[in-house]
């Protein structure tokens, strides 16, 4: 079994090799894309798509779910994934054109950045949950009632 992080690590290992052939650069971009896809597909709280509408592939559907989300951060990741998908398509299908070092390097950087953002978001949500639990487990005692003295 492998994780999204394994895809990214593999991309990094490939990119660190001294001899960067075009096929290597294309593999770097492809692996980076799949790292991000598998990371984002596990996210909770994405809107459900209308199944009566035209069927899209799972990759397009995930981009749509992210872009249609009410969460601004998710929408941004949707744009990132759409972008990387275009790069992955170029890497895998547009074999007659060139594929640059810039494309490969950018794929890695963007995925690393998005992974970091996901970690921060998850930590923030965990902390919010913990805070809620703390508040629940230690209820604040009601203030003691003191009788007011009537000043004559």
């Amino acid at each position, binding site marked *: 079994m492998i994780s999204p992080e394994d895809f990214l690590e593999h991309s990094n290992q490939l990119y660190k090799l001294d001899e960067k052939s075009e096929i290597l650069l294309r593999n770097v971009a492809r692996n980076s894309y799949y790292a991000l896809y598998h990371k984002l597909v596990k996210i909770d709280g994405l809107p459900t798509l209308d199944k009566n509408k035209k069927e899209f592939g799972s990759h397009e559907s995930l981009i749509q779910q992210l872009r249609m989300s009410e969460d601004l951060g998710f929408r*941004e990741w949707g744009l990132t994934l*759409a972008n990387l998908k275009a790069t992955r*398509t170029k890497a895998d299908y547009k074999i007659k054109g060139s594929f640059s070092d810039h494309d490969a390097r950018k794929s890695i950087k963007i995925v690393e950045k998005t992974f970091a953002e996901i970690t921060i978001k998850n930590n923030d949500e965990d902390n919010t949950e913990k805070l809620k639990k703390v508040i629940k487990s230690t209820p604040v005692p009601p203030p003691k009632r003191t009788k007011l003295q009537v000043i004559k």
Partner: protein
Amino acid sequence: MAPRLPKTVKSKIFDSLNESISKGIAISAFKLEALVTNANSLSVPGRYAVLSALYSHALQYDLAYQNAEYYMESGHNDSDFIADIISGLTNVNLFNKAVELSKKYPIILEYPRSRQYIHKSALYTLDVEYCEHIILKYNLEGHNMSFNYGEILHFFGNDEKLVSRASAYFNYVYSSLADILAEYSVLGKSVVFGVSQVEDYSSLHLAININGQCFDNVLDIECKWHKKLAQYVVVDEKLCGIAFSMEINC
């Protein structure tokens, strides 16, 4: 005949604009001041055209458009001046503004060079109705575009309402792009836009080529652009899948 500018002043200013384009860096405030002083020595209405091009490349969009309007309002329709104005606007990706100006002053379409810029601008802003109008009314021979308005319509399933929503989205896309590039004082080198078809799946991709900037800067600009783009809520599947990127011009 429309008044002509003294060649030396105009060419000096346009040399600076071309230098700024080739470096990918906007005209600085310091340099702008000197160039505006030079431009102000030119006679009206040519001065407005030169000022418009100048402000475009200094990324002072409001002043660029304002001076473009001053020129058009003057009624002196010199094809070179009009082309200078329109190319200035399109050089800084103000495609929506170029189309807006052309709709307000249709005489712009009478000049082949300006017409080509406007047609490109209408395509880039997904204004298919205006593209169709230009194609049907004028000859666009020699205008090499990688795609045409028919492909845009086809991409959106000939759904005119969807195309209209897409066009509204793209107006936002270019406005946000202009804001970001102004923040970084960067001029985009060129735009690559078109439909990509792989097997039975097609998608739109808009790429802005940047030069004179390092890798990290370009990545930073793209991330900021995406943050702005994410603020615009899209719900149509076709709009969700559009990719927007910044590329280093090699």
